């Protein structure tokens, strides 16, 4: 089904691409939201990622799942935007609203509450630590790959991950 949608989208079928958007928007938005810690920026990066995907569909040859290709592209778009804009402002305030995190109840109050606290704590991490934490612990990328994507040394990635986990534990213990 997805393969067919991808083929149609590659042939210029916007309706098929829209369906791909419907299937993957939540995943891409979650990724962008956690990487940026900012809802507005996450919306923009999500849109940028899909526009970029549309323009680069021809380069997708099916060597990986379409979703994996798209999420990697979303990571690159988000990191590139951060680097090119050079913005370093704190974005925590926007994320302080737990409603925006759209938590899903997973069968008990405690995990949901913890999830909200954790999302907020992630958003409050320093930018470098947040990116590495999201990419390694949530998205499953390795340090070597993170180093290539973010332009930092592999050792720095490990140090940032250590720092992020320590900061998160401290925040959640308060």
């Amino acid at each position, binding site marked *: 089904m997805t393969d067919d949608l991808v083929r149609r989208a590659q042939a210029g079928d*916007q309706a098929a*691409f*829209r369906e791909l*958007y*419907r299937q993957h*928007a*939540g*995943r891409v*938005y*979650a990724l962008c*939201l956690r990487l940026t810690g900012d*809802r*507005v920026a*996450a*919306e*923009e990066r*999500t*849109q940028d990622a*899909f*526009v970029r995907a*549309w*323009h680069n569909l021809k380069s997708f040859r099916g060597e990986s799942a379409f979703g994996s290709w798209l999420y990697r592209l979303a990571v690159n778009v988000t990191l590139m935007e951060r680097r090119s*804009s050079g*913005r370093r402002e704190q974005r925590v305030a926007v994320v302080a609203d737990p409603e*925006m*995190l*759209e*938590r*899903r109840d*997973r069968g008990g109050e405690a*995990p949901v509450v*913890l*999830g909200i606290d*954790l*999302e907020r704590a992630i958003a409050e991490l320093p930018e470098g630590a947040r990116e590495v934490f999201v990419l390694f*612990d*949530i998205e499953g990328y390795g340090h070597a790959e993170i180093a290539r994507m973010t332009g930092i040394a592999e050792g720095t990635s490990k140090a940032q991950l250590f720092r992020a*986990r320590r900061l*998160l*534990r401290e925040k*959640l*213990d308060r």
Partner: protein
Amino acid sequence: MNERELLDAVGRLPKSIEPPRDLWPGIEARLGARSRLWYWIPLVAAAALAAVLIGRGHEGWKVTWLAGAGAGTLRVGEWLVTDDSSRALIAVGGIGQVEVRPDTRIRLVRARADDHRLALERGVIYAKVDTVPRLFYVETPAGTAIDLGCEYTLGTDSAGNGLLHVVRGIVEFQTGALSAKVPMGTILTIRADEGPGIPYVEDASPALRRALAALDVPAALRAARAEDALSLWHLLQRVAASGRGAVYDRLAVLVPPPPGVTRAAALAGDTASLDAYWKVIHRLHFRRVILSRP
């Protein structure tokens, strides 16, 4: 919490979070522009000026970059985007101009003699228009600013939360059937989920601003002065029927209603009565603001 517990909690985080709004329209608008994407970079590199204009039409308004050299035309359907250090000036046909502040994304929707229309997706603009009312419109995610001959600053985030500050003339902000009249010297808070709030004068007390934001009628009535009559006039039309009597009575003490306007008619929402009352309130407000300015 130890590291194992932290990683367990991370593992329970949802992989997917639905965006708070449908992002597809914004994506779709950019899909067809592949071969017509413009990167318009003025000559002053230090200004780090960047603009992206997407999708081209035939009619257009002249654009001048304030941060350095460069000029061009913004055509119907095109976006103008400023980064955090660039500004641009759009000539609104022959009726005025709009300064586009940094970090703003705005599109020219219509450029007709009877309908000059921009869509402010996010950011801040300063508009200065000199023409008859209802020729210049700025759409935002939460509603539309309708120019009634004025000068104003309008800012919004991409969700629609924003602020309108009118410096001269009067602007009407409309979201569906809900609208607010925002005359010179007043400020309007705009909320993504509710549209226009209740406008207040620049020197309104913090207590009144808080009360208006919360639609706390008793607190608003306690904090209101004669200068805040325009806020109470709006409040009168926003509160439930049971609360209107108290608002009207306080308003009538601060600014007596003109002949012909009765309490019953005002409470019933009679348009002619409310309009007549507004004229009195607006005239007093206008004189006060004019006299207070150097």
